[in-house]
């Protein structure tokens, strides 16, 4: 990777919020992903653990902090307090429940309104293990996701299907976005224009096997 010499190997810290209606499985999903369940050190306090995940994509190191507010969905006005400054959002619906899909649309609207295009969106249809009871068609969901510039995934947290990909794809897009913002910044400051070209080279095409390096 020639670019690696130029691209600063800086660590990306990304905040990712999990949004979606109650009971669509977002907590199982993220617990499945970070695989730490309740961290030992939280046992005494019994708090929901602060969910973090470190991964490496290409030569980029990424720290994800994943915010889950399962159970607080009904506290209505908390959204903005919770999602501000996030780099990515994972909007989950239950494929057997059309209402939960509508709720995702509402979230997308609100996030777009409040955070513009800076936030990367991933829409997830969870509970593919209940395919027989499906109420939200894949086409509808994918079409919608495309129309709002989001990626769409189908997962089953229960069977651990498709979970890794969700976070990997989102992380890549967040890196891309961060690079884009860096490049814009650099383009604005003429002094460092020479390095800009090198940095735009993205490494995401490498079939990155994320190196999971534990957590917290």
């Amino acid at each position, binding site marked *: 990777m020639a670019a690696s010499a130029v691209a600063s190997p800086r660590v990306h810290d990304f905040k990712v919020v999990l949004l979606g*209606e*109650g*009971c669509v499985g977002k*907590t*199982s999903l993220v*617990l499945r992903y970070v695989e730490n*369940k*309740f961290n030992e050190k939280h046992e005494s306090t*019994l*708090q*929901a*653990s*602060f969910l973090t995940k470190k991964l490496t994509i290409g030569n980029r190191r990424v720290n994800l902090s994943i*915010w*889950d*507010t*399962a*159970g*607080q969905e*009904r*506290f*209505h*006005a*908390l*959204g*903005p*307090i*919770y999602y501000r400054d996030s780099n990515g959002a994972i909007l989950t619906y239950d494929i057997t429940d059309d*209402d939960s899909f509508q709720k995702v649309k*509402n979230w997308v609207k*609100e996030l777009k*309104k*409040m955070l513009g295009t800076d936030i990367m969106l991933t829409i997830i249809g969870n509970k593919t293990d209940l395919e027989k009871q499906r109420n939200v068609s894949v086409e509808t969901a994918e079409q919608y996701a495309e129309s709002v510039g989001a990626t769409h995934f189908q997962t089953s947290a229960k069977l651990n299907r498709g979970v890794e990909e969700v976070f990997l794809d989102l992380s890549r897009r967040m890196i891309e976005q961060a690079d884009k913002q860096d490049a814009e910044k650099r383009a604005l400051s003429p002094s460092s224009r020479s390095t800009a070209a090198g940095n735009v080279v993205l490494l995401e095409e490498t079939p990155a096997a994320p190196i999971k390096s534990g957590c917290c």
Partner: protein
Amino acid sequence: MASLQNRRRHSSQAARRSSTFLGCMGGGGAHSSTMPRKLHLSSLARKNSVVFHNDCDDNEDTYPDGSDTCSSKECSDVLDAIVDKSDASVLRWKVEELAAHLTLITQEIFQELQPHDLKSLKWYNARLKNEPESVRVNEITRRFNYDGQWTVKEILNCETPRQRADLMSHLVRVAKRLFELNNFHSSYAIFSALKSAPLARLSHTMALLPKKDRSTIDELDAVFNPENNWQAFRDYQESAGFPRIPHIGFYKTDLIHAYHAYLNPAERERRMAVIEQRVFDLFNRSNYGFLEVNNELYNYLKSLRYLDELQRFVDEENIKRSRALEPDAVEKGKGSTKGSKMNDESFPKQRHSQVDPTEDDGLDDNSTNLIDDSHIEEPMRLPSLSLPSSTKHSLRHSQCSSIGRSSFLGIDALQHHFSWQGPVERKSVVRDGRFQYFPRWKRVWMAVWGTNLVTFKPKNPFRASLREHFQTLPSSIHPLSKWKLITSTALEAIEKGRTSALLEFTLVAPDSATVLKLKTANVTEYREWIKFVRGAINQAENPSNLINLDS
């Protein structure tokens, strides 16, 4: 922790100050004894006759400027279908009273909570929402949402940024008082509503918010902080004393995580029981019996209802209303930011002009300014569109901050009674019956006070844009009774080739002994001035006598 305790002590002192401040507001009625207060009261009474609470209009604790022009009609058109009608003047209740009653009501709901309700997680499943366990838990969240919705609705019900800022200031103090009462549930409800999308985007209102209240928001923000899984909030809440009403949001998350994380049923059960017990320990059957009950206020706050199912609709209406009140700077700035520099130079006086034709979808009523709902003069409408729309800068920012900084820091309680104020340029064409041969534009700070026009001269003529640049004592007070307001029509101005004349209006005393020309900084302010000056003239006499050379 020590710093938190410090902040806490500090904030309670501030609360005492704020209560004396309010006391002085109430006492402010004494000022108005010299003023034709009756007219004001009758207008309030008229208003109250069409809204929900109509039995308290002689309450001297009202902010006259904030409450009497808060049109409930228009807003009720938007929101009536969904929410209860209520008096536009929440301001007539003191901060302490509002906080006390919100606390008493919430306390009752918490007392209903039974062991196992939270742990059952039935509340998490929409399909089980009618189970008694779910109902009792959801009643807590529902109350949280009522309080928040009420906060949003009441503020959006106010027409002008100034009125909204007055009410917002009041509610910030309520949130703070609730915090001091250890009622974290309600405090967070109001706080989060203030941060919610429809309110957080009201930059003009925010700019008018007193500095003190803005720092209160920051203080609360430091505690109600979701970082690290609400660690600061958890710590603070758990170390606060009794009585106490906790915010239970993150404990609910803890329960769900425990449920998913522990696969061994016995272990899961034990963990969840401990979390639930923590909530009970925090509340510990807290009793706020020491708070005095005012039945009217209690019933009013208790009556706040709306249907959960319509929440989405209410949200949309709220954001629409919010956008109508203060259109988005970003949207507005789309095509105009590039040219702003040039425009600023060529039209220095008009750099805050606004009204983008594309913004008109917010309200059907074309006679209402979408920025602040002030009445748009019909002749003004077309030319205003042709004025350079140059900036996404906050419309009233320059003088907002000044009002916030000086008048609200208690230089003079009198100022709270101004229905409108700001810097203008004044030219005395006729003074004391004598024609002035070389009148010059001079910057002054003017205010509409009841039916009077109050003028403050600058301390230093070269620096006069913020309130603090002007003297605290007025240099003149003109009762506007029987005065004429003359505005130049758009056509005249265009014919003369002076678009800046659009921002000028003339006031003529009944005996023509005084003729004042006033020039405002931008169209929005112009409209506000016209609206309030005309309102003052109107108020001083029979509306049928109003002389309006415009129409």
